[in-house]
């Protein structure tokens, strides 16, 4: 197989490592020194018999002289080198483009990293540009911000008058109080509109999607259900399933999630779950007792079965630090995209009591759901590390019946939660009246 000029650079490197002169290698390989010189300087393509002879003379496998010749890598490096001025602290001279093949040949690791960084920088630049354009030209954002700033201006000015004007006539006083009241309501509306806009932002363009968001979008596209991972030999299918995800970081997250789904499917096969659900209904504790599996595993399995089999089942998973790892929402139960959720969710309660599951009826606005939570150790404690935990909260429809349980009022996350006097509040809310 004829290869690009990269092979010449590799031959030269190998020859120098072997301590051979050009003439010596040429003689051993049965070619002229001038021809070898052209090959080494990548001015002649090499393949077939000549390649085999040179490899034999260098005592290396022919493939080591030709493998890894990556035109994409070269193109990526050339692109990175050609993108304008450096503007940085280190690059004093222009990149030596005429030696890029040599660079790749000698330092493939560094070359790959540099190409990756170049591409990441391009992606970030596109993201920044998209966000800047959005902020500058999005009419919805512009109008909302203008409204908010105008209202703040009015409140500031009016409040100053009320606070600083001595002997303010009662009719003026009344008018300014009324104005502040009106402006307060407008400001709340504007803040709410702004929050809605910002909360929806990651969906507005693929460029601004985090790996977590991208992974969740993938899971949602599949309804968190992967029939292709049921049965033996499913490991080999994971790569094919995640290949639809564009970015590597998101693919890694999805790969880990699918591996877990596969293990759960193996522990609790679909046919068995069918029988158990028919016998017990969506009761994870009964299923856990019947199968000897952990509650956490039953939660995960239930959340990844089709809805026509198990009914609406949501699942929220957090790590020991409380950060959201997975969110499958159902029935309109709202969760934040990232960070921490509502401190009143039983999800956080169980982190401090791993052995004790908790159930509660939750009221999020007008919505009532049944939540079951349990925590599980994922890495046991050692002398050098604390135990690492994960907590799971299963969301199920509220049980029907005459004895309706008292519901615990919960929110989504403090910034957009209107519940006053909440014991778990971490920060103020921008909302007043509703979700």
């Amino acid at each position, binding site marked *: 197989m004829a290869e690009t000029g990269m092979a010449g650079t590799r031959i030269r490197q190998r020859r120098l490592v072997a301590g051979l002169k050009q003439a010596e290698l040429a003689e051993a390989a049965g070619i002229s020194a001038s021809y070898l010189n052209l090959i080494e300087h990548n001015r002649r393509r090499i393949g077939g018999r000549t390649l085999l002879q040179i490899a034999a003379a260098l005592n290396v496998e022919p493939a080591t002289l030709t493998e890894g010749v990556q035109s994409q890598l070269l193109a990526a490096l050339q692109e990175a080198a050609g993108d304008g001025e450096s503007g940085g602290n280190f690059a004093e001279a222009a990149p030596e483009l005429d030696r890029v093949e040599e660079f790749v040949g000698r330092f493939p690791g560094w070359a790959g990293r540099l190409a990756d960084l170049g591409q990441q920088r391009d992606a970030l630049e596109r993201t920044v540009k998209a966000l800047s354009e959005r902020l500058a030209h999005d009419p919805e954002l512009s109008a909302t*911000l*203008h409204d908010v*700033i*105008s*209202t*703040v*201006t*009015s409140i*500031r*000015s*009016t409040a*100053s*008058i009320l606070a*600083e*004007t001595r002997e303010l006539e009662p009719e*003026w006083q009344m*008018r*300014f109080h009324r*104005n502040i009241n*009106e*402006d307060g309501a407008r400001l709340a509306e504007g803040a709410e509109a702004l929050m809605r806009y910002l909360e929806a932002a990651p969906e507005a363009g693929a460029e601004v999607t985090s790996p977590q968001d991208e992974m969740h979008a993938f899971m949602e596209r599949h309804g968190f259900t992967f029939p292709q991972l049921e049965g033996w030999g499913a490991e080999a299918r994971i790569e094919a399933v995640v290949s639809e995800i564009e970015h590597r970081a998101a693919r890694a997250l999805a790969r880990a999630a699918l591996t877990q789904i596969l293990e759960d499917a193996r522990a609790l096969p679909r046919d068995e779950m069918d029988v158990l659900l028919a016998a017990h209904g969506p009761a994870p504790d009964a299923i856990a007792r019947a199968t000897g599996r952990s509650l956490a595993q039953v939660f995960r399995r239930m959340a990844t079965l089709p809805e026509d089999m198990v009914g609406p089942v949501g699942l929220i998973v957090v790590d020991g630090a409380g950060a959201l790892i997975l969110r499958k929402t159902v029935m309109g139960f709202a969760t934040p995209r990232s960070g921490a959720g509502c401190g009143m969710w039983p999800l956080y309660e169980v982190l401090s009591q791993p052995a004790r599951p908790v159930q509660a009826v939750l009221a999020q606005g007008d919505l009532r759901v049944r939540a079951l939570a349990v925590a599980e150790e994922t890495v046991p404690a050692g002398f050098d590390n604390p135990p690492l935990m994960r907590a799971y909260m299963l969301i199920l429809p509220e049980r029907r019946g005459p004895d309706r349980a008292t519901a615990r009022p919960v929110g989504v996350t403090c910034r957009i939660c209107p519940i006053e006097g909440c014991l778990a509040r971490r920060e103020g809310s921008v909302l007043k009246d509703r979700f």
Partner: protein
Amino acid sequence: MGKTVLLIEDEQNIIEAVSFILSRDGWEVKTHANGQNAMEAVRAREPDVVILDVMLPGKSGFDILSEIRAEAQFASLPVLMLSARGQAKDLEMAERAGANRYMTKPFSNAEVLDAVRALVPS
């Protein structure tokens, strides 16, 4: 009779607050609440100073200012522009259009008062 300020601003509560503080300071305050016909208001009121919002319904403050400057009798009429936008390019646009001062919202009452007094020395 004090000197006259023409306030061209569409937010009613800002109009009331700014009118109040200027009136208390001895200015005669006239108001106009949209971009359309703003030039007619300037001609009719013949103010000593104009406070002009940038984002107005009907016509932008920049366009109104260009119209003001296009008429010889108002070429040197002091204009204070108000805007929610405070980027360098906004300031540049205001300067190019012929604004004497550019103030970003939210402003304090004292800032407005000081700016107007500075633009029309008694």
